[in-house]
């Protein structure tokens, strides 16, 4: 188990290094000089040079990469070109909206998908199964941001149960914040839940065809007991993979959904930074998103080993 964890950890570190190099390189090849852009076209050359020195743009590429990575490791993400404010603080403020939103949505999607998938698999071919699969077929076809707009139309504009957008901030109370994130989380979660339900169902059905399910039935377990005691844990392995992948999609989706609900999250930050060519912000936010995805997949790898004893001994 320890060796397995170390091995995954090593691959996590390698992935992070490669990802940071890729992101840094892409941003490096961006045309235009940030210092000139910040000072406008009428700036004096020596003012530009001074700013370049201040931003560290006159150093070699390798030094700048090492500075950037070293800074991130110590929590210093640099200074925004446009706001002249520490990027770390800007990200931290926004992260308190985006991360809860993604986790809220992930929880919702799992809570919906597990029972729905198990229900459908247990009633394979029946009316219940057909309605669940029909609903998921529709669910995977709905764009989440459009679904969000429809939720706003129904629950905010017509029924007035929720506000149409905005975020009061956590300091004004936990429930107020959760309420503001509820419609966005539902919009994000339902299409993902549809996918997860399908995976749960088909994974369970595969397992239910395995020999050891027949062995369990021969021991005297009912079909239902066999499903719960032997099917579920084995079916979880592919489902975990999808949950890991979904986290990436939820983070990305959160960025889009924030636009629908005018939420002050990472999405807003990054789109403003793109229009203002504030590349240090773009670079750091992207790195953060990729970091989150890689870490979540590391956790999923560990979860595999918890579920599947074969992985623990295999090294």
């Amino acid at each position: 188990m320890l060796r397995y964890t170390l091995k995954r950890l090593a691959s996590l570190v390698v992935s992070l290094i490669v990802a940071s190099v890729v992101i840094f390189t892409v941003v490096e090849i961006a045309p235009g000089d940030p210092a000139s852009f910040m000072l406008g076209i009428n700036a004096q050359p020596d003012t530009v040079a001074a700013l370049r020195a201040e931003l560290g743009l006159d150093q070699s590429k390798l030094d700048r990469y090492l500075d950037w990575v070293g800074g991130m490791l110590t929590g210093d993400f640099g200074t925004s070109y446009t706001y002249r404010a520490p990027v770390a603080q800007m990200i931290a403020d926004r992260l308190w909206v985006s991360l809860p939103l993604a986790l809220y949505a992930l929880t919702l999607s799992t809570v919906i998908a597990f029972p729905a998938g198990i229900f459908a698999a247990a009633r394979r071919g029946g009316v219940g199964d057909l309605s669940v699969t029909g609903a998921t077929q529709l669910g995977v076809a709905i764009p989440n941001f459009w679904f969000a707009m429809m939720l706003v139309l129904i629950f905010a504009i017509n029924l007035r149960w929720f506000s149409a957008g905005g975020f009061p901030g956590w300091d004004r109370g936990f429930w107020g914040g959760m309420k503001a994130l509820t419609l966005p989380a539902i919009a994000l979660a339902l299409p993902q839940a549809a996918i997860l339900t399908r995976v749960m169902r088909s994974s369970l059905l595969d397992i239910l065809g395995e020999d050891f399910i027949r062995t369990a039935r021969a021991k005297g377990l009912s079909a239902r007991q066999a499903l719960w005691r032997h099917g579920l844990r084995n079916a979880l392995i592919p489902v975990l993979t999808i949950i890991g992948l979904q986290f990436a999609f939820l983070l990305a989706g959160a960025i889009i959904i924030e636009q629908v609900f005018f939420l002050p999250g990472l999405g807003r930050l990054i789109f403003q930074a793109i229009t203002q060519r504030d590349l240090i912000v773009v670079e750091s936010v992207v790195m953060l998103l990729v970091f989150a995805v890689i870490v979540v997949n590391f956790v999923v790898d560990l979860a595999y080993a918890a579920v599947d004893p074969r992985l623990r001994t295999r090294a």
Partner: protein
Amino acid sequence: MSRNLILGGTLTLVFVLAALLSFVWTPDGVEAMNIAGRLKPPNADNLLGTDHFGRDILSMLMVGARTSIAVALVAVGIGMGIGVPLGLAAAARSGGMLDEVIMRMNDLIFAFPSLVIAILITAVFGPSATNAIIAIGIFNIPVFARITRGTALSLWKREFIMAARVAGKTRTRISVEHILPNVANLLIVQGTIQFSLGILAEAGLSYVGLGAQPPIPSWGRMLADAQTMVALAPHVALIPGLTIVAMVLGLNLLGDGLRDALDPRLKVART
């Protein structure tokens, strides 16, 4: 033929024909603004109503279908064109250095959702439909590489492949002659699914302004424009949204139908 295949095939065909038709004819121009006739609900002149500039929504949707289909199709092409050879090569030398490198690269790309790739590209080169194609296409590569490798690996263990090796054929030749045809069904089905995901992704990207730029009509853009009008005129948001749902649903049904028709045991990847 299954019901899925007929329903999905018909829906897909309708959209493709509408997109092709838009090259030669649309009910109305998509650039002519008519402020007086804005936000009209569906009526005899404008079957699906007009938008906030008074443009005919049906015409906009027909032209927008072109963008969506083109972006998603080219992105699938990129994913298959690069992913399938990589997957075949990885499986042919499974456990080797090449396999390891290809699979690690795949894992890495999976950490970059297409939206993140699009953000990076846009930050550097500015927004365009090409960005959307590249971003979605790059994300498709590991999907195709993975399923190709997975299926190819199980085929390499089959005795007919051993027989071909005993017949002196090279690994490359076996990959092309024996493995590829036996992966083809899966690729067709997975391609249909990636096509539908591409439509969704393109809509999302152009909704946040990272995809096709005005004046090129696109479905996501139409929804972004409709957002502030949704209380006044719900149809401007409802109709393009339902159009996307119908197209994606059609492709998914087609994918399921093709799978049932070709080989019901195919294991496709869904994310």
